[in-house]
Every structure is written in C-alpha cells, then in structure tokens.
C-alpha cells in the first residue's frame, strides 16, 4: 500500500491590498491571519487546521491617513497604535491586553472577533460605532462600505476587512468599562459614546452584551439627561464565562451613566 503525503496547507503572503482581496476571493475556505493573537493559539492547540491562510503582514493594510476631514485606518494597524486615535477609540485601545499583545493584535481582527469560547470579544467595536465609523470590506459580492453596526450584524467573519474610516470631527468622547481581573482578560462590559460640541447627535454603544457590540439607540433618544437604564431595551443579556446576565443588567446602566457624565463634564 502506498501512502500519499499529506498536502501542505496553502499559505499566501499578499504584497498589496489588491493581492489580498484577490487571494481572499469570496472567502470560502480562507483563514485570514492579521496579528495572530486570536488564531495562533488555535493553531497551537490543534483546534484550527486551515487549508488556505492569508497572512496580512505585508499587504500594505497598516496605513493610517487623515485626509480631507476623514480618518482612514487600515485593517492591519495594530491596536497599540490606536492609543493615539480620537476618543473613545483611544481609551478602549489602551485597555486591550498588555503592551506586546496590543502591539500585535490588529484593528481588523478586533472588528471581526466574534465570541470566544464562552465570552464576547472585540473591545473596539463599540467605540467605532460611537464614532459613526464605516468599514470597507471585500468578499462575496465584491467590495462594500457600510456602517460598523451593519457590518457586525451581517457575518463579519466572512469578510476581509480592508479599512475603517470615520469623519475627523471635533466630537467629545466618553468610555467606561468594568475592571479586568488581569491584563489579558477580555472586558466583560464596556460603553462608548460621542457627541458633537453643540450637544446634538449623541451616539452610544456597548461591547460585551452579546456576541458583537450593539448601538444603544434608546439611550441616544433620551439625550445626556436621559435614563441610563433605557440601555437595557437595546440588549439581550446572557450568562457567559466573564459575567452573569444578572450582573450585566445591573452594571450596564451604571456604565452608561458614567459615560454620559463624562460627556456632560467635557462639554
């Protein structure tokens, strides 16, 4: 009996955005590796055996441009670099893991990070919703640009994130989160918000209250002096490894209240 050698998994290292998009195609059977902070442990443990992997390290997706009133941040920009981003993105980035892991994890990975093994991830998703950010992604049906909250509600794991962009406006930002027990713990619950200096256009979102971040429209309708408890209308809380639904139900209004206070004090 002859034994055929096992096929080596295909690993592609695109040298440009165009090559990355072409290599991704419609995304079928493709694993995208940005910083490696999520996928490398899965590979090491043997839980992930990809047939085709795209390494984004040299795809030129690590550019950050402020031009014409718009901030454009490439998907491979590290979470660590985002500590210099507008609030509340900067505060959220500072609270992701430790210096080294933060420097390896990427914006695109964090945006696509669905629930881990029993707990939510993606601490940057709520700040991006609060900033009214748009995601440019590629995959089945071609490229498209859409608001972050819509992107998160339509299978982000099946898309290649290329870039995130938002208007570089003079907005006030607020952010509050439950304390993490350790630098490497995911945040059980966090709330991000922005508002224009004139006090209009309040945008509020939370991470940790579901598989992906959600916009808290009920809080937005109440304005800065509204009832923080209205946030519970926009979420479906569940128990997970980080916190119980009971605890989140009590803490979400507290965090919303803190963020609204920050915005009032800043204004």
């Amino acid at each position, binding site marked *: 009996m002859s034994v055929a050698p096992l096929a*080596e*998994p295909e*690993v592609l*290292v695109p040298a440009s955005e165009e090559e990355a998009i072409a290599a991704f195609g419609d995304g079928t059977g493709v694993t995208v*590796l940005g*910083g*490696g*902070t999520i996928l*490398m*442990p899965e*590979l*090491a*443990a043997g839980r992930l055996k*990809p047939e085709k*992997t795209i*390494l984004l*390290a*040299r795809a030129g997706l690590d550019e950050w441009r402020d031009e014409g009133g718009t901030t454009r941040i490439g998907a491979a920009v590290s979470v660590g670099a985002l500590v210099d981003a507008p609030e509340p993105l900067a505060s959220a980035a500072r609270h992701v*893991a*430790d*210096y*080294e*892991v933060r*420097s*390896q994890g990427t914006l695109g990975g964090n945006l696509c990070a669905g629930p881990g093994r029993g707990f939510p991830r993606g601490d940057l998703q709520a700040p991006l919703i609060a900033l009214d950010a748009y995601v440019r992604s590629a995959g089945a049906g071609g490229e498209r640009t859409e608001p972050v909250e819509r992107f998160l509600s339509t299978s982000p794991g099946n898309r290649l994130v290329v870039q995130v962009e938002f208007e570089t406006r003079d907005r006030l930002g607020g952010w509050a989160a439950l304390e993490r027990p350790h*630098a*490497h713990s995911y945040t059980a619950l966090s709330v991000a918000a922005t508002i224009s200096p004139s006090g209009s256009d309040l945008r509020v979102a939370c991470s940790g209250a579901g598989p992906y971040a959600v916009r808290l429209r009920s809080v937005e309708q109440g304005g800065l002096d509204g009832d923080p408890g209205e946030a519970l209308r926009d979420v479906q809380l569940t128990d997970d490894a980080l916190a119980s639904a009971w605890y989140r139900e009590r803490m979400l209004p507290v965090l919303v209240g803190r963020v609204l206070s920050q915005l009032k004090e800043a204004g």
Partner: protein
Amino acid sequence: MSLIINGAEYELASPPLTSLLNVLREEVGLLSPKAGCQQGGCGTCTVLIDGEPRRACLTPLGAIEGAAITTVEGLGDPRNLSPVQAAFHEHYAAQCGFCTPGMMMAATGLLARRPDATRDDVLEALAGHFCRCTGYVKIVDAVLSAAAGRVDTTRPEPEAEPGEPSVVIPGSPA
C-alpha cells in the same frame, strides 16, 4: 524563509504558520524563550522582533521574513551582561527563572523606547507577564535600577573549584 537571530542569519525550513517560538526552540535550538501558555497570556516567550518586544508564540514565521530577532542569548554574555541582565542579577530578580527571559526582553524593549522609564511605565510594560514565584517587587526594582543606570554590567571570570567537573546545560547562554 530567513531570519537574523542574535546577529546571525538563519535559513529556516519550518512551515510558514509555525510559531516563532517553535522555530527558535526546535529548529534553531535557542531555549531561553519558554513555551508557557502558548496563548500570548504568560509572557515568557517574549523576544524582540526588529527591536520591539513581541510574543513569539503568537507570531507565525511567514509574517516576519527577514526580521531581526533578539533573545536573551543575544543580550550579553556571562562576563559582560546587558544592563537589564546585570540588574536582575544584582536584585535577585529571579527564583525559578521560567518567566525571566520574557521579563528581561520586555524590560529591554521598554528601556529602548523609554530610557527614563518610571515605576508606572515598568508596571505597565510587565502587566502581561506572569511570575508564579510572586517575585514582582524585585523584578520591578531591577528594571528601575537598570533605567537609572545603577548597575555594573561586568562580571569576573567564574573560577572553577579544583576538581569541579565542567557542566554544560543545553540551551544555557553560558
């Protein structure tokens, strides 16, 4: 695939999704980066990649073609330690030693980007590094001492006792 490891160029045969940690330990034979949690959570595999501290366990070989890697073996030698190594020695900042390579590389990276690091800087830089011997106080003191330049990096030639056999520990920088 090639890397420059502690100043020497290596042609490597490991597949591109192999972690840098496994490349260093299993193909190159450098054993200072430890295989701890292998999830990025313990810090003991930390090395410098192009001068920046990074988790070797989270870094696929294929993403760092041609990069310059520095491990503890590349910091100094037993008679001419790096400032961080000398400070760890002087402050007894190691017990079992398992976390020490990662602590040293994180500290070396910190002092490279912030030579006048404060206590808060050190605490933040080491926040993701576990020491299960609970030796954090001496480790932090050591890094602050290195930042202040209060270390003697030279060491005398170790003298063997008469009749003492030569002991070579695989992977030891000595």
